[in-house]
């Protein structure tokens, strides 16, 4: 797979790294935001688990894919924007029952802290059920203006689905990138 010219590579990287969608509100998101309408972390955390310990993490169970998939800092979410399907009845790579996975989507490139590889992550939306409301997460590394469609995380990608109603977002491994994000 050698021989790609530099421009194509750079273009690819910027597309692959951009990506996510439906942005919002800065410092948002991380963790089990629960029923909090305020996406501000301290409030949300305090409210969802008042006086209690944090919930047990949701992990892959394998060392090569580390991290709690209900928190915004899980490595695959580097360019996600929306409710994490892991908190909504789905998983990191499956939609909740009753929804339909969008056939088209935006992609990002995230580095796995365990194997140091840069993976192409596809952030397929789950559609047909109203806002999940749990685990709002917004990370904008590589996000570009809407003019660069595939690199902008503010679109609702519930396109080509029976209903365009947005429920939550997945983060699916679809390949390994040629090289690391900058």
């Amino acid at each position, binding site marked *: 797979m050698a021989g790609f010219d530099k421009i194509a590579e750079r273009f690819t990287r910027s597309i692959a790294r951009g990506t996510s969608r439906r942005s919002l509100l800065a410092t948002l998101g991380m963790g089990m935001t629960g029923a909090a309408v305020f996406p501000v972390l301290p409030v949300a955390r305090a409210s969802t688990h008042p006086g209690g310990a944090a919930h047990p993490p949701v992990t892959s169970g394998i060392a090569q894919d580390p991290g709690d998939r209900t928190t915004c800092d899980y490595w695959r979410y580097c360019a996600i924007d929306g409710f994490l399907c892991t908190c909504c009845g789905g998983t990191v790579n499956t939609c909740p029952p009753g929804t339909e*996975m969008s056939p088209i989507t935006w992609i990002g490139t995230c580095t796995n802290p365990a194997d140091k590889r840069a993976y192409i992550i596809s952030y397929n939306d789950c559609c047909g059920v109203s806002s999940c409301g749990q685990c709002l997460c917004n990370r904008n590394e590589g996000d570009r203006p809407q003019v660069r469609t595939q690199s902008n995380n503010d679109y609702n990608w519930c396109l080509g689905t029976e209903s365009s109603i947005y429920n939550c977002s997945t983060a699916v491994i*679809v390949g390994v990138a040629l090289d690391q994000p900058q």
Partner: protein
Amino acid sequence: MRLFVRLLSTALGLAVLPAHAATPAEPYAKPLPEEAIPSVSALPGQWPKSWVLINDFHFNAIVDGRVVVVDTSSANQPLKGIVRAAQFANSLVSTKRGEILTSETFYSRLTRGERTDAITIWDMADLKPKGEIVLPGGKRQLSVTYPNLFQFTNGEKWALVANFTPAQSVTVVDLDGRKVLNEIDLPGCAQIYPTGQRGFSSLCADGSIFSATLDDQGKVATSRTIKAVQDIDRQPLFSAPAMVGRTAWFVSQHGMLQGFDLSGDVARPIPGAFSVGTAEGAAPEWRPSGWQVINADAAGRLYVLMNPAGKEGSHKDGGTEVWVIDPAKKARVARYPLKAQSVAVAVTREDRPHMVLARADGVIDVYDAASGAFVRTLGATVAFNPIVITPVQ
């Protein structure tokens, strides 16, 4: 999506490698595998008895109410799915039918335009809609979620829907035939308590209870009123009873328990109302309080949410204890202190049953039903305003 990536790759002469083709990196020789798209989570063919359905009223967007499927045994992934339950909706679940039913109201332009009331039939296998029965007249009762505004009868082949315009009536729906059979006027009476094989009862404003049997067209075949079954001024009964088989146990705002045998054609008050009891430490007194204030376990014990600041107007404040009552012995058998004031209580049908409490802040807490010991919290992670809990049977 794979198609989309491929197209992108082609279009851009691109650097996306399938995961299996990537360069090794120590200590992991192979990258993580490529994952399937599209993919939707499956539900178990038979839902575990640790699961409950919870009505989320969603006060800040009543148009966008839901019923959520919740695994009370999971502290980190309790939310299993969301079913639409729009606009003061009601819901039913039938393991026998393999269906969740929602009774909803829609406008063609969300808040304005043409109104449509309908029952939607959702498949328990995949939470997808598989049918709809439009309810005529735009008269479905819109209230904060009361379970007894939408009930089965006729062996779960029919459903009954309460109407309020404010004229009161009940719509009889043939679920298998997907059609409305009849509308029964019910002046002065409210709520629906399935009675006998094919019929229902309602409580009436004069303190009586009205019972009707239905013919095969959904018309009233026989009816009967029994007077003075409740004193609405002094001992008003909470509208939603705990069901023990075909016996409905109602509790009053002051803590009196009154049973009705609904197994026959006519609701029969069970003689000998009795009190949930009293206790120290209250000011002014312990009273039942909450939204879903009473429920039963599989063994027939009753669980009543109790508030120590009981007074006029306190009956929806929620409870800080659950009092467990054995209606056969007419005795309180346990008092369970709660971690927080709670507004709804239900008990799972697990071999080792759990008591599930919904709090006003949206948190769901789980306790051991036999001992009252706190087991786990689910946090506020499944619903905005959880108010009615239905255990999977």
